[in-house]
């Protein structure tokens, strides 16, 4: 589906149930035009991964996901030679001349593709999501650079494999460490923060349709108010959604201090935070 302007991207994302703000739509539009990856950063639970999923369904593309973790290496991210199969091949015909065999066992038949190579080799364009890039070591980032800037992968035994179609690439980061300059330079930077009250209301309504509009708005305001407190882990959008569902399950349709205090544990995950917020909500008569 062609996206001709930021507004049409916003509309298409909305149709998929993802409500982008103006910035998000602009940056996605720009990334598609400049064919550059987007580095999405922000607190946990504001919908970074969701954005990639929504984009994939907007374009009707397959989503290929590389979940990063500490110790992720080339063999898990790019490609790996299938040693076992190669050994079997060698043992199977021990009589064959070595020169013949050497070329043979380094062919595509013995190559295991991993997410990055898969995204490059796909005939149909895909959306590539590299999730939580900040979890890998600084040195491992370098593996990504060739893919991100030139959309190609070099395999010593086979040569360079170029992308048959340009994937749309999103990287997400929870900002637990500074990413390398080289990586940042190759990406467009998109910081997604907690949504404004208006946007959060819209998100609540879109995701929890049975919620009355007035209740959604006062919920969004209460959550925004809690986020402004100096607490350890401010409630994320997903926790705000959980909270909305909880209130509906409990049949609460009128929000007052007690109702909020009783359900705080859905929004907040630390006892110290719960105590602090409960105290600040306590009526001071």
């Amino acid at each position, binding site marked *: 589906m062609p996206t001709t302007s*930021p507004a049409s991207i916003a509309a298409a994302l909305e149709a998929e149930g993802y409500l982008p703000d*103006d*910035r998000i739509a*602009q*940056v996605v*539009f*720009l990334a598609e*035009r*400049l064919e*550059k990856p*987007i*580095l999405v*950063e*922000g607190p946990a639970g504001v919908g970074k991964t969701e954005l990639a999923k929504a984009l994939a369904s907007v374009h009707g593309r397959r989503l290929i996901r590389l979940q990063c973790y*500490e110790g992720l290496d080339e063999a898990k991210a790019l490609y790996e030679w299938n*040693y*076992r199969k190669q*050994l079997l091949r060698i*043992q199977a015909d021990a009589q064959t001349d070595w020169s013949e065999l050497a070329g043979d066992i380094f062919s595509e038949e013995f190559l295991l593709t991993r997410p990055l190579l898969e995204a490059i080799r796909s005939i149909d364009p895909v959306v590539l999501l590299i999730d939580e890039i*900040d979890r890998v*070591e*600084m040195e491992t980032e370098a593996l990504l650079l060739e893919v991100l800037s030139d959309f190609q992968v070099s395999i010593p035994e086979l040569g360079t494999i170029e992308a048959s179609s340009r994937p749309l690439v999103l990287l997400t980061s929870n*900002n*637990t*460490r*500074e990413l390398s*300059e080289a990586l*940042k*330079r190759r*990406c*467009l*930077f*998109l*910081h997604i923060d907690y949504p404004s009250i208006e946007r959060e209301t819209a998100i609540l309504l879109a995701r929890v349709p049975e919620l009355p509009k007035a209740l959604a708005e*006062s919920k969004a*305001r*209460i959550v*925004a*108010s809690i986020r*402004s407190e*100096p607490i*350890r882990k401010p409630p994320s959008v997903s926790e705000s959604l959980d909270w909305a569902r909880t209130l509906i399950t409990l049949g609460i349709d009128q*929000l*007052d*201090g007690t109702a*909020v205090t009783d359900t705080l544990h859905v929004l907040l995950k*630390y006892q*110290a935070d719960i105590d602090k917020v409960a105290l600040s*909500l*306590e*009526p*001071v*008569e």
Partner: protein
Amino acid sequence: MSDAVAHQAPNRILMLRVLTGFVEELRAVGIPVSMVEAIDAARGIEYVDLGSRSALRAVLGSTLVKNARHYAAFEAAFEVYFSSVGPPAGSVEDEARSEGARALLAGLAGAGGPGGGNGDDTSDLVAALLRALQDRDEALLQAVVRASVDRLAGIEPGRPVGGAYYLYRVMRRLELERLQTELVEVAVREATSSLERRLQSEEIERRLTQFREMLRSEIRKRLVADRGPQAVARTLRRPLVEDVDLMSATRDQLVEAERVVHPLSRRLATRLSQRRRQGNRGRLDIRRTMRASLSTGGVPVDPHFRRPRPGKPEIVLLCDISGSVATFARFTMQIVYAIAAQFSRVRSFAFIDGMDEVTSFFGPGVDFPTAMRRIGAEAEVVWLDGHSDYGNAFGAFRDRFLEDAVSRRTTVIVTGDARSNYHDANAEALRDIARSSRALFWLNPEKQRYWDTGDSIMGIYSPWCDEVSEVRNLRQLERFVERVAIPTTRPIRPVV
């Protein structure tokens, strides 16, 4: 490209020129912008509607700034350089919604003009403002902003100012604070519950903050029209939060520093634990290698190694928490405790003219400002008169804690300005502490050129320290803590 975009061509050339100046300004603030990123920004502009501020901001923001912490500085510079981008003045007024709003607008326009006849009477402005806030009428609000700046700011052309005074003048003439109090009072009276009250007053504050921001940007726009973007940007330039001098920081800057110190130390912790685990690979793990080789027909394709476990340093903090350097002590403790997992043990001691152990005040998830207040009230940090006395404090530490707290594996970190109010230096006490420890570092938050002036006796103590560092902002503090935490870079003195 469409016609609408094509005929903007000369506009684009102008835009590129502005962009060059803008990039230079960002670099001057301290935001690293590479050549490639500047080119990306220029390419990005090709695809954007130049009449839209938010679109332009999104393009420049995503191509030039790659760190959320730098966003505030970017926004400020953007406001200055692209203040004129947007719908031309007067065009939005026509869209004002209600009949009443239109009448108010006409009234404002009639009384308009700088120094216009009724400059002293602001009742029409206040009425229009209240109306705009109530109806959330953006157009009317914008008109009020423009009229207020016209009539009340009294901008004097050519003066090299940042506009804070003009803003103050407008706000005082509109009596904005009184207005806010009144609005809150009305809302509180009408509210049915305490939760409702709180939400209402937050809503009022949010709208008035928006109004204040609009005033600020309108004033800035006038200043730029008067003196040009370069000059205004230079006047408004503020250091990035990690470069703010903690000793002379304003309250707002401290609040901001407070906000970044947690993510900053968390990042430091991750980096350190990764560095610790990587290092050299350690010895070959024969058992795991053999096991793995079974799946490749006994060929050890994949060698496994044992992970090395380098020793962790033990930390003792001695922090001067008297008035002038208390903030600095708090930030130091906050960072050290945030990465406590990197040390085998952290003990902290606070002093003014007496010394007491305060380790028990800090646990996981502790609120640092509260902990610091409790220390001031409960720990025995004051011995005589509550003025810093380093000599007595070091003496007290040597007599009461040295044997128990400091060993050959301990790194001692002292923070303070070494201003001892002309008391006896008691350098032997510090010497004894240094001799029993592995290393002793001193962090001084004062500018180096002020050391040894007045009652500062840094020079008397420094011979016993392995290193004395001037540490005045978060960036330097982070770098220091990182260096201490990595065992290989820690100096080890010969046993005396």
